């Protein structure tokens, strides 16, 4: 392998900045093909009902309409998708399971014509009871899925879905010791139940897909985070070899997990198949909210403590509202279980989880993947326990934290992080700008009595609260990555991976790794976009895995490339490959040999070696890779290719590839007259092992934490009966610029303790995971009553304030 100079992190600018500030960057939604038609989706107006008839005559006669497509028109295509449980029909078959479910697609020459005609498809329903709440659905005899689509014995990673007699999409469990006995004998038991809202990832580029079906091939351009997963499902549904399905993912406008796995691609492909034309489908925000949301959760945590405030046991119950189709929720539930007991020592543990089907929008992955849901209860529980035990909440955490190398879950990777040091960093930053004491709150209010919007702040009083929260997540997903580096005749390289660039900066960070390994300038590394026809296999772009797992694949590819260059250097002059070494980005004849061949004129081999040595000596510092390529091909042309593969072996044999740490602190102020919460200070500690590009990591942390603030304070999909009442960005409120915390402290902890390149671990989810919990605890401290439900909108906080007065 190439020797690398002292590892130095560089906050180089993003490589996509120029094309993104000039409007030239090509996103999935910008893709077009010749002769492209457009599809509009006819969506269910019932939450749970049998379809009794679909009258399409009027739509078919409308101007520009090419085809009206229903499930009955799809011939022998596979009708359902779902990478864990194939329960999800492209278009509803006989029955609809949520308001907004696709029932038909209308393909027309223009988007307007398609949308107009979609209004002319008349669907009659025979209503069934709508089960829009997880607990109700689990208790009900009415089945949302009358049959199981799970294949016994088939597993997706650790998840083995089985048939269920009720509305459970999946059940999971994790236990050791005897939690019940330990709780019974604990000195103190603290119980917390929280409700985590239904949230929508709101990637600003909404789901879209362009599909071009032709006999024997299918080409899709879409917003997929995991193009290889989508390829697999499309190949199965269309009975095509994997090689015949091409999924291309240009830049996409945000993902955050919400674009994981298969979404609109089968619908676009089926429409293309039916219409005989390339077909584009784009959802609006409402359609996106009907496509995927995150799992809502009701979580109960009971923790037992001994007389020294050490945890003796935890008993945790997780109930997910998974919506109408399983999508990735069985895996999200499994992860939520693994992530629910926090980075604390657990002598005894019992966790039970159920993901319940309901008649609501299907839930799946969203940044953090079950961790925020569980941490809300678990970390709030630690704060409640600290109060009960009369201990500082930071001290209570310190007393129970796992140390580096400790086991979180038997059989999994030992903890590769120093959480105590991370916690110290959070506390230090919070203390550095400590709250003005409550006694002076009214003085604070008047000194700062106009916020930036110019609105007068309440004089009635401001209360402050601060809290810390920690999480440890088994991240990195499955190590199954291939990277290819192609070195050209001038020594520059093209790096090919199927990681999706959705804003996280993967093309920049991976180019930095390749440049470092190959000792070439960053400008000499080009990175291609994901395109399954050309770029090599990648499991997923998720679980904060790219820098770590794909980074390792890039390193391996670069090492393979150096081997290939050594072999070609040796071959071109006839020395054994073992005589050629790589040093400082160049190829040299091994020093020992070049010393001994200097005066040797004996024999043919000696002459060739002398020739190579003289070449080496002539250049003074060995051969540059470009010289090797040109000599080997005998022309100023050609290329040498290196391939790197990461699988469950070596450094990535033990899962998870890394534990992703969340370590945050918040200080909030609460306006006692209005219940409005202001985030005064946000502290994130990015425990990333090594930051390949520190500015990009900090960007991930602030972005993730801001999404966490959104969940904590504003975001919630509200169902009123069968129907989502706020399917738009006016009533579904996401963080805005004026919501930004008044002070932001972003710290990176680089201890080189990760399995990734240069000791790197992942970032991207960690800074979201504990934020909702931290905000809930801080508001609880400010108000004097612990919140049990997010988001903490002014009416909810105002109610808490009223409770506090009683």
């Amino acid at each position, binding site marked *: 392998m190439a020797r690398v100079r002292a590892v130095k992190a560089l906050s180089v600018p993003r490589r996509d900045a120029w094309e993104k500030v000039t409007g030239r960057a*090509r996103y999935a939604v910008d893709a077009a093909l010749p002769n492209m038609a457009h599809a509009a989706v006819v969506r269910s107006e019932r939450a749970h009902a049998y379809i009794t008839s679909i009258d399409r005559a009027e739509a078919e006669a409308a101007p520009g309409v090419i085809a009206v497509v229903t499930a009955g028109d799809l011939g022998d295509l596979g009708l359902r998708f779902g990478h864990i449980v194939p329960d999800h029909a492209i278009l509803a078959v006989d029955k609809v399971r949520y308001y907004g479910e696709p029932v038909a697609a209308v393909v027309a020459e223009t988007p307007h014509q398609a949308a107009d005609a979609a209004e002319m498809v008349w669907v009659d329903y025979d209503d069934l009871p709508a089960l829009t709440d997880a607990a109700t659905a689990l208790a009900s005899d009415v089945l949302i899925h009358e049959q199981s689509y799970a294949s016994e014995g088939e597993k997706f990673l650790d998840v083995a879905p089985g048939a269920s007699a009720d509305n459970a999409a999946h059940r999971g469990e994790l236990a050791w010791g005897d939690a019940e006995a330990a709780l019974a004998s604990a000195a103190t038991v603290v119980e917390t139940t929280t409700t985590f809202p239904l949230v929508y990832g709101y990637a600003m580029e909404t789901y879209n897909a362009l599909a071009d079906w032709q006999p024997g091939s299918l080409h899709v351009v879409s917003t997929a985070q995991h193009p290889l997963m989508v390829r697999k499902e499309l190949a199965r549904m269309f009975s095509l070899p994997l090689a015949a399905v091409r999924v291309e993912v240009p830049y996409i406008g945000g993902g955050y997990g919400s674009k994981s796995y298969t979404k609109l691609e089968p619908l676009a492909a089926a429409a293309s198949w039916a219409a005989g034309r390339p077909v584009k489908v784009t959802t609006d925000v409402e359609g996106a909210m009907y496509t995927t949301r995150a799992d809502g959760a009701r979580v109960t945590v009971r923790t037992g403590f001994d007389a020294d405030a050490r945890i003796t046991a935890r008993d945790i119950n997780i109930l997910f509202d998974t919506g109408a189709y399983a999508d990735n929720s069985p895996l999200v539930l499994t992860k939520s279980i693994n992530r629910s007991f926090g980075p604390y020592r657990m002598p005894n543990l019992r966790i039970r989880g159920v993901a319940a089907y309901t008649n609501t929008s299907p839930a799946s992955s969203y940044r953090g993947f079950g961790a925020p849901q569980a941490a809300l209860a678990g970390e709030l529980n630690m704060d409640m326990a600290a109060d009960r035990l009369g201990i500082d909440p930071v001290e209570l955490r310190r007393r129970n934290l796992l140390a580096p190398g400790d086991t979180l879950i038997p059989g999994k990777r030992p903890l590769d992080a120093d959480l105590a040091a991370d916690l110290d960093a959070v506390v230090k930053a919070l203390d550095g700008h400590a709250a003005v004491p409550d006694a002076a709150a009214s003085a604070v209010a008047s000194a700062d009595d106009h916020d930036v919007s110019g609105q007068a702040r309440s004089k009635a009083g401001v209360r402050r609260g601060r809290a810390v929260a920690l999480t440890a997540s088994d991240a990195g997903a499955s190590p199954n990555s291939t990277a290819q580096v192609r070195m050209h005749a001038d020594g520059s390289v093209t790096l090919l991976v199927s990681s999706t660039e959705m804003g996280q900066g993967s093309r920049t960070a991976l180019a930095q790794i390749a440049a470092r390994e190959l000792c070439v300038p960053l400008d000499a590394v080009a990175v291609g976009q994901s395109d399954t026809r050309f770029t090599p296999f990648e499991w997923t772009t998720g679980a904060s895995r790219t820098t770590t797992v794909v980074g390792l694949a890039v390193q391996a590819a670069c090492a393979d490339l150096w081997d290939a260059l050594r072999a070609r250097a040796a071959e071109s002059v006839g020395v054994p490959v073992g005589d050629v070494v790589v040093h400082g980005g160049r190829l040299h004849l091994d020093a020992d040999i070049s010393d001994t061949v200097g005066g040797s004129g004996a024999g043919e081999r000696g002459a060739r070696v002398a020739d190579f040595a003289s070449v080496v000596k002539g250049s003074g510092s060995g051969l540059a890779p470009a010289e090797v390529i040109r000599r080997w091909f005998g022309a100023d042309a050609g290329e040498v290719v290196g391939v790197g593969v990461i699988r469950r072996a070596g450094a990535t044999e033990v899962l998870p590839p890394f534990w992703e740490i969340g370590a945050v602190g918040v200080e909030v102020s609460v306006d006692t007259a209005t219940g409005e919460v202001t985030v005064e200070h946000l502290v994130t500690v990015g425990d990333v092992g090594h930051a390949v590009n520190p500015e990009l990591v900090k960007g991930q942390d602030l972005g993730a934490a801001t999404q966490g603030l959104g969940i904590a304070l504003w975001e919630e999909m509200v169902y009123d009966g069968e129907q989502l009442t706020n399917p738009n960005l006016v009533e579904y409120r996401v963080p805005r*610029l004026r919501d930004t915390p008044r002070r932001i402290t972003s710290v990176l902890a680089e201890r080189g303790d990760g399995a990734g390149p240069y000791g790197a671990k992942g970032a991207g989810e960690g800074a979201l995971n504990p934020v909702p919990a931290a905000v809930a605890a801080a508001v609880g401290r400010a108000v004097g009553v612990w919140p049990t439900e997010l988001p903490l909108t002014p009416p909810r906080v105002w109610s808490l304030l009223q409770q506090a007065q009683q």
Partner: protein
Amino acid sequence: MLVPIRLTVAELLRDRLRLTGTKVSCEMQVCGVCTVLVDGNPVSSCTTLACDLDGTEVLTVEGLARGRDLHPVQDAFMAANTLQCGYCTPGFIMMTVALLDAYPDADHHDVREWMDGNLCRCTGYAPIETAVTVAADRMRAESPENEL
């Protein structure tokens, strides 16, 4: 140019003229990604009819650079780590241009007031706020009045 009466400015730009730098997201004037300047004023192109703009001048993100030279606002957005996915970037840039054209002396409060109508889901906004301030400073430094 003849356009159907229902065609929005965003559709005209993106679908007819293939100027895809202008993006669309919320389609109800709250996210700002579709912002273009009509005779210098910021307008949501997703909810403005193309036919209503007859005779006006429309400036999009594609029209900001002078050849290879970027507009100072584009430079500032490049330099300050303001973007991740970049989908909101054209809208933010156009809104910043509108702000600084109208109020060259815009202060911190003006920036927060104007930019509150543009959503970003990736960055947490702080770097964008910095970039707008940097661009304002630079444009003031470079303005002809300061060269007198």
